């Protein structure tokens, strides 16, 4: 008995020593095998009435051997030799172009693509050679104003976006990630993975083990919008774990009626409201990478500067000529005019700004399309070497002589107030470029309107709806000054339209500081003092990050999404009236459908105590009417039908992959050991009497 105990003790000691020697810690096996790579932005799936676009991996993720393609030779090697398919291709941003993508897609050898953006220490990287746009050559054509008429062919021969390669609308059956790596640290993907294990030497394929990567971006939705909505609906009925498959794209439009009007003073006159609009969204293939510097932000920042100026003379708008000015920021315009088409739809149904209800005393009067006197839209406005702006108009509406003369009046008053700018009206026979105004003209051709932009023909913005449309591509010493001049021109024109024969007082000037801070917050660093001021220090954004302008989906209230929230507060600040009341009184004020009260500027690190702003800023749904209309014909193209697939997670991780021969032999070895252990157990069982002779001592115990 004592002998047996001793043997046990020795065994324990031996085992313990063995475990201690082999680094006994709680690391999980997955962590030993895989190395996660964060800082990735993934391509995802969107769907419209008839198609699916974007990317998806398989449910368990796509795995491929890493191969870096930097030159034409690498391409040829991959396509002609490349024995270890499937591959995941690492591409520098400059090679992420349509022809390369299509070659890879059609080769059948590729399980995924990683755009490897190697930045320097300041996270800046020279953008790929322009022009580069992933949108269509004629963006938003199918839902635009000219989709069924003779003007639709204009864009085919004179494309607005000639650089557009339509990659955004391509359907990839594999995942695509955009990964930033600083050159400062040794690159994990390039140095530790590709160069160390996978680089073919003089064309000879590398030997195993090879560095492989797993890309996971599994999309739930498929086919098209009606299919995924229907599946979500059916799934909600039956499945014990109900969930939607896709969500309509949507957010909020943000608008400011410069003057607060109450429905009690009666309906407003027809043709008595000036609208100034801009868009606040852009798009890219990758989730979280859509700055939209020139696509959206230049126009938006100018509109904010205009709001600031108009606020200074709003009481000079007496109501004789015009009763109100609406400043509008549209959302979702990149995806077939979601925001503007919804506002136009609401206007025609008498639901804008809000449907009138007798029980609510404080409501704005209804605004319909017939109330619009002029429409001024701000497009891309970054100066490209000169100080020119172009005034685009719509030939269809100008067929009508009354509309035409109104448009001419508008053009003339803008040119009269152009200041240092050169304002050039584009020929009246040329249709409008992609513009929110198209959605309104589609409903009512009697609206006199124009689009102010920085291009005459094709876009001067070389990165329209692309992840490289950033501050670097529009940055110039003249930028904010130029936008300030545009803001001045538009404000002065509005002043003159409101007070014919009078000119805007010279003491009202555009606030260049405000413009610069706006551009900084939206384009350089969202953790900026302006945003912190607006949100009382609760900005909570990492330094150096930029908020994506992609419209997103309609979960919850869009008014509280990061970008919408900040923009709404910014507009409330520039267009609101500061009140002399304390925080409690401000928060408990009568928030109604005319006024909202914003407590801003209570900013600890700034030691400022805060101010209450009474503001007329409002939001309205920017969700396509297609999702409101029962039995909407999804193939009609009348309204935007875009939805975004749901997904559970994006993940990227690398690991070493053994050759299939080694993998199979290990498996076979395992099976042999298993069978052998069965045999041994069986033999021991049948011969137990031989091995363990019945011991009288044990019985005694």
């Amino acid at each position, binding site marked *: 008995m004592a002998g047996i105990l001793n043997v046990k003790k020795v065994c324990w000691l031996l085992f313990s020593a063995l475990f201690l020697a082999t680094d006994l810690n709680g690391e999980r096996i997955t962590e030993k095998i895989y190395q996660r790579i964060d800082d990735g932005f993934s391509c995802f799936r969107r769907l419209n009435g008839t198609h699916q676009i974007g990317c998806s991996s398989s449910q368990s993720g796509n795995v491929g051997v890493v191969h870096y393609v930097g030159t034409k030779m690498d391409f040829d090697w991959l396509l002609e030799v490349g024995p270890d398919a499937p591959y995941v291709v690492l591409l520098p941003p400059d090679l992420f172009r349509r022809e390369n993508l299509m070659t890879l897609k059609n080769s059948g050898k590729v399980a995924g693509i990683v755009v490897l953006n190697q930045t320097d220490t300041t996270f800046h990287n020279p953008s790929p050679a322009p022009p580069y746009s992933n949108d269509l050559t004629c963006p938003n054509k199918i839902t635009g104003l000219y989709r069924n008429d003779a003007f639709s062919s204009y864009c085919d021969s004179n494309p607005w976006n000639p650089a557009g390669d339509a990659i955004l609308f391509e359907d990839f059956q594999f995942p695509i990630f955009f990964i930033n790596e600083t050159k400062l640290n040794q690159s994990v993907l390039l140095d530790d993975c590709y160069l160390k294990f996978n680089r073919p030497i003089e064309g000879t394929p590398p030997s195993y083990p090879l560095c492989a990567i797993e890309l996971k971006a*599994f999309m739930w*939705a498929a086919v098209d919008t009606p299919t995924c909505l229907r599946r979500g609906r059916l799934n909600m009925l039956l499945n014990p774990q109900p969930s939607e*498959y896709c969500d309509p794209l949507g957010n909020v439009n943000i608008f400011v009626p410069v003057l607060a009007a109450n429905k009690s003073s009666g309906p407003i006159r027809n043709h008595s409201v000036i609208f100034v609009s801009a868009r606040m969204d852009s798009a890219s293939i990758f989730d979280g990478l859509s700055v939209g510097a020139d696509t959206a932000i230049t126009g938006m920042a100018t509109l904010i500067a205009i709001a600031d100026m108009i606020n200074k003379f709003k009481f000079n708008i007496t109501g004789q000529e015009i009763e109100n000015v609406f400043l509008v920021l549209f959302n979702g315009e990149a995806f077939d005019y979601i925001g503007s088409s919804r506002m136009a739809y609401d206007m025609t149904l008498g639901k804008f700004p809000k449907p009138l209800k007798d029980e609510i005393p404080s409501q704005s009067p209804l605004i319909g399309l017939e109330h619009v006197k002029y429409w001024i839209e701000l497009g891309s406005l970054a100066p490209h070497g000169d100080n020119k702006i172009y005034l685009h108009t719509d030939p269809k509406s100008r067929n009508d002589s009354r509309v035409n003369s109104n448009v001419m009046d508008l053009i003339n008053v803008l040119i009269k107030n152009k200041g240092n700018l050169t304002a050039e009206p584009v020929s009246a026979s040329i249709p409008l470029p992609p513009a929110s105004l198209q959605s309104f003209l589609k409903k009512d051709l009697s609206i006199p309107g124009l689009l102010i932009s920085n291009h005459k023909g094709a876009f001067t913005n070389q990165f329209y709806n692309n992840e490289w449309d950033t501050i670097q591509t529009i940055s110039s010493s003249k930028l904010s000054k130029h936008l300030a001049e545009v803001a001045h021109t538009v404000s002065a024109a509005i002043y003159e339209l409101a007070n014919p024969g009078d000119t805007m007082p010279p003491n009202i000037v555009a606030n260049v500081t405000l413009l610069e801070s706006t551009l900084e917050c939206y384009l350089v660093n969202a953790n900026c003092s302006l945003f912190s001021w607006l949100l009382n220090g609760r900005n909570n954004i990492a330094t150096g990050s930029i908020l994506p302008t992609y419209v997103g989906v309609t979960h919850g209230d869009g008014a509280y999404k990061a970008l919408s929230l900040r923009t709404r507060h910014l507009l409330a600040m520039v267009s609101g009236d500061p009140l002399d009341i304390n925080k409690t009184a401000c928060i408990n004020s009568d928030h109604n459908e005319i006024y909202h009260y914003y407590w801003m500027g209570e900013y600890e690190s700034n030691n400022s105590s805060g101010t209450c702003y009474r503001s007329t800023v409002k939001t309205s749904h920017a969700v396509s009417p297609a999702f409101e209309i029962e039995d909407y014909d999804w193939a009609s193209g009348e309204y935007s039908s875009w939805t975004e697939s749901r997904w559970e997670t994006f993940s990227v991780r690398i690991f070493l992959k053994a050759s299939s021969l080694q993998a199979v032999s290990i498996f076979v070895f395992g099976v042999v050991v298993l069978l052998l252990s069965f045999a041994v157990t069986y033999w021991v069982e049948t011969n137990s009497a031989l091995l363990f002779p019945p011991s009288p001592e044990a019985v005694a115990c």
Partner: protein
Amino acid sequence: MDIERLKNDAKLVLCRKYYYAGFAFLPFLWTINAVWFFREAFHKPEFDEQPQIKQYVVRSGIGAFLWMMIFIGWTCVFQSNRAAWGELGDQLSFVIPRGIP
């Protein structure tokens, strides 16, 4: 339940009950009947009720086989056509797959 303990006439009653109950669109009952009474019907030394039990077992077996053919046939038709049927395919599905047509 161990049918060995039953008397032969009780076995016949039970087998008949299963056979008739199977007509209520219960092919599994027929399957069980065919398997359960197989020994009674074909391997036991002859007894009075055996021919009848044999008849029920054979019929249950044929019925179960036909049902199985129908099930397999429908499964093949459904799985290969679900995506093409579109809305109907989704309505006939309990678990609607993610990420595929």
